[in-house]
């Protein structure tokens, strides 16, 4: 179990908006795949480096199982080389002057208090290499390996000691798109196989959704939302999370009545339209809100066409500004008077640029969020 409480790390002047990390707390059950997600500069890497011991938090505490790794109140700070954590770096950090075998064996050789025999080391390294599908690569020089293979060496090195915690710092960001997909699947398989608690840092929301058991969305050092991938995606806590999870349509408005979390209610948009929305969080009447609308939830039709589904009770009329062909679907931009909305449209629908259109969508897809 990893327990992080009130982790704080400030850079420069400790003003409220400075970069760094404002008090952050979370706890992970053993075996959890946990992702820190956010744009660059949100504090996700800082959090990871604090857990690793590469950086010293200003305040807070970090516990792993029954070991206190860091606690500023008690003045405890376990040096990073005694934390026994496996880590994969963004650049892989494979030492070019050592063979693959020596790279992977390094943690076994330098760990304090243990002195494994040569045959034990060999067995452990072989096992780690086999797990990442690199059996027989031991004698090679890492400089002869491809990016994906270096990545696997880094993974093998991180798991060879069978650590209680695995830290991954954007490990897939240096790979090309196809390799990335392959490694994603492999990472997940390996993590499940070893049952190792994992903290993963990324700015890629689709990676986070696919891999994680639990996601923390961070922005400017603050935790915006902590939840399962489904929760984060379908019930974003606020407009930042919704936007970061891939919703480009955010409409400012005002609530017309008190609505409890999970309920439905009406929101008046700035341009006078009223929408029926779902409220993931409780909001009082008259509070300003942001309505998030995913492009894929919007149906674009000609104004004469009647709505086909009973659920799509919201309707906005507008004019098509642009149309980008993307295969079966096209992405279009619709001006609804003061706002433009992104929507997806069937490429063969026969609607061209500048046409008058109607946008319909169900109330469940229009999320009224706090700002």
């Amino acid at each position, binding site marked *: 179990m990893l327990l992080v409480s009130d982790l704080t790390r400030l*850079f*420069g002047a400790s003003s409220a908006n400075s*970069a760094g990390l404002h008090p952050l707390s979370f706890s992970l059950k053993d075996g959890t795949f946990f992702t820190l997600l956010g744009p660059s500069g949100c504090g996700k890497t*800082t959090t990871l480096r604090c857990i*690793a*011991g*590469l*950086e*010293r938090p200003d305040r807070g505490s970090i516990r792993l199982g029954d070991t206190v790794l860091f606690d500023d109140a008690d003045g405890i*700070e376990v*040096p*990073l*080389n*005694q*934390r*026994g*954590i*496996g*880590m994969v*770096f*963004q*650049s*892989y*950090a494979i*030492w*070019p*002057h050592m*063979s693959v075998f020596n790279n992977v064996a*390094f*943690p076994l050789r*330098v*760990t*304090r208090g243990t002195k494994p025999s040569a045959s034990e080391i060999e067995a452990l390294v072989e096992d780690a290499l086999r797990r990442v599908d690199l059996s027989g690569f031991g004698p090679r*020089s890492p*400089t*002869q390996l491809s990016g994906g293979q270096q990545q696997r060496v*880094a993974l093998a*090195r991180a798991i060879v*000691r069978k650590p209680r915690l695995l*830290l991954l710092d954007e490990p897939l960001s240096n790979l090309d798109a196809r390799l990335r997909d392959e490694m994603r699947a492999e990472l997940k398989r390996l993590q499940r196989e070893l049952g190792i608690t994992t903290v993963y840092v990324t700015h890629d929301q689709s990676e986070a959704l696919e891999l994680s058991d639990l996601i923390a969305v961070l922005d400017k050092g603050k935790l915006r939302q902590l939840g399962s991938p489904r929760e984060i995606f379908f019930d974003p806590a606020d407009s930042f999370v919704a936007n970061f999870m891939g919703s480009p349509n955010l409409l400012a408005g005002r609530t017309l009545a008190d609505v409890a979390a999970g309920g439905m209610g009406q929101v008046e948009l700035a341009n006078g339209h009223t929408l029926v929305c779902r409220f993931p969080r409780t909001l009082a009447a008259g509070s300003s809100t942001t309505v998030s609308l995913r492009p894929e939830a919007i149906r674009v039709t000609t104004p004469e066409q009647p709505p086909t589904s009973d659920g799509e009770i919201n309707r906005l009329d507008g004019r098509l500004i642009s149309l980008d062909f993307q295969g079966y679907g096209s992405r279009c931009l619709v001006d609804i008077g003061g706002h433009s909305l992104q929507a997806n449209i069937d490429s063969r629908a026969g609607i061209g640029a500048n046409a008058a259109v109607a946008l319909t969508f169900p109330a469940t897809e229009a999320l009224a969020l706090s700002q």
Partner: protein
Amino acid sequence: MTNSSLPASEQLQRRTFWRRPQGSLFTWLAPASVGLVLALLVLPPIAVLIKTSLTQEQTGAYTIAHFRDLFADPQFYTATWNSLLFSGLSTALSILFGTTVAWVVVRTNAPWRGLAYVTAAVSLGTPYILHVMAWLFFLGRSGPVNELYRAFTDTGGNLFDVFSMSGMVLIQGMLWSPLVFLLLAATFERSNAEWEEAARMCGASIARTMWSISFRQAWPAITGMALFVFIRNLESFDVPVLVGGPGRVYLLTTDIYLSTTEMPPKMGRASAFSVILIAVLSAALLCYNRYSANADRYASVTGKGYRPRPFDLGRHKWLGTAVVVLNFLFVLGLPLIVSLWLSLMPFARPFAMAALPFATLENFQQVLSDRHLIGLGINTLVVAAEAATLAMLIAAVAGWLVVRHQAGARLIEVLSSIPIVFPGIVVGVALILIALNLPIPLYGSLTLIMLAFLIRFLPYAMRYAHTGVLQIHRELEEAAGAAGAGQFTVFRKIVVPLLVPALVSGWVFIFLLGANELSMSILLAGANSQVMPVAIYDRWSSGQNVEVFALGLVWTAFMSVLMLVLYLTGRRFLAALRPANL
């Protein structure tokens, strides 16, 4: 490691002089011992110079008389003016020449471009003194230039008096142009070729592109280099003493030297001179640092490893080749041919077919059979190797501490860069003074010369180590820490092996500098601690002017072979260390 590696807060820590030591013994032991060694090397020379410059020689009382005398002496102003003029003009010459060659070699398709690299490499391995002597003969009274002039004009006079300011400038300018070439070639290679290609695509001619893009882009590098060369020229000694001495053109460095050779030596005056020279150099260097801090603003290092496509000079290719060949002749060919000619003559004779029958190998025989000279050569190599080894050892730890912002990093950085403002001759004066005041018999020993080299060349060693550490990705060390290694283990198993290439090239550079160094050795060499460049100088000034060329050539050949062996074994050694290139 816990207190290092805070990338986002590096700005904050750059100014930190002292950070609370944490963790292992190594964390505070390394900075403490390196700091102590650096302080012991660097601070005493300044202290002893300032003290001596303010002390009356006979009574030992405090006085400002040395400075007062200096400022009242018209010779001081002449020397200062001469120094500035000499440095300025020879800088201009070497920059102009070196830049042109570098551009032709790196950015055009002129044939025979590779010759320039060979020229620069061999010329850097030749002692300056050999270059200077060859030029002196070539342009001198009985050299071919004046001979031809006399033959054609039927007068008894000389076209050119080499023992003059213009002679000094010409020789010094040629001496420095290979280094300018090498450094600028590297800059040109790194420059963003896409900017030039874009200009060409917009329809600009080669000349226009060169002027508006290439040189504008390289301008900060060129001017930065000019300032650097100017500073080096200010403290140069070989040309001022060999050319300016006989021509009675005195510079600051030669005045310091002359003050120490008078009987009794005027150490107070020499110290006062040295203090002033250090002050001038510090000021110049401050300007340089200010300037070079934003000199990198055009630098664009792209990850793409492609070589920029060279300009096609078309019909003017031969012009580029002419520049390269001219460079070869001036920088290497001419000094070597002159040296070879003279070394084969029984006495100094001008170039003439009539002299050919007199050619003899006697000079070489004499040099090679002289046991004294062999011992001398060994002395020189040992001293240079010791200094290079010690300097790189200190620099490896210090450079790492500085780059990784360990405890005391700022202090170590400042201490290790102080000797940049010590001209060789000043280090010589300072170490004489220190040796005379020490109870241990250091004076006149090889150890003293070695110490002088170590102090003087420490900043170069730091430069190599610093750059080397910068190239080691921080995550390589962090990964070792995360894998469970303590800080000393990280340093020993990760940093040092990866630093070896940088340390080896730094070692070779310092070794070469030391083996051909004159200004410090000339003051410090005693009867039992002679080194080769001083021996060459002594033989030259005592008029043995043909044998000395044979000696110089043998020394050059020996150093070239040694460098080749070092290079080849070094390459094999490095290859064994890392199976593939990084």
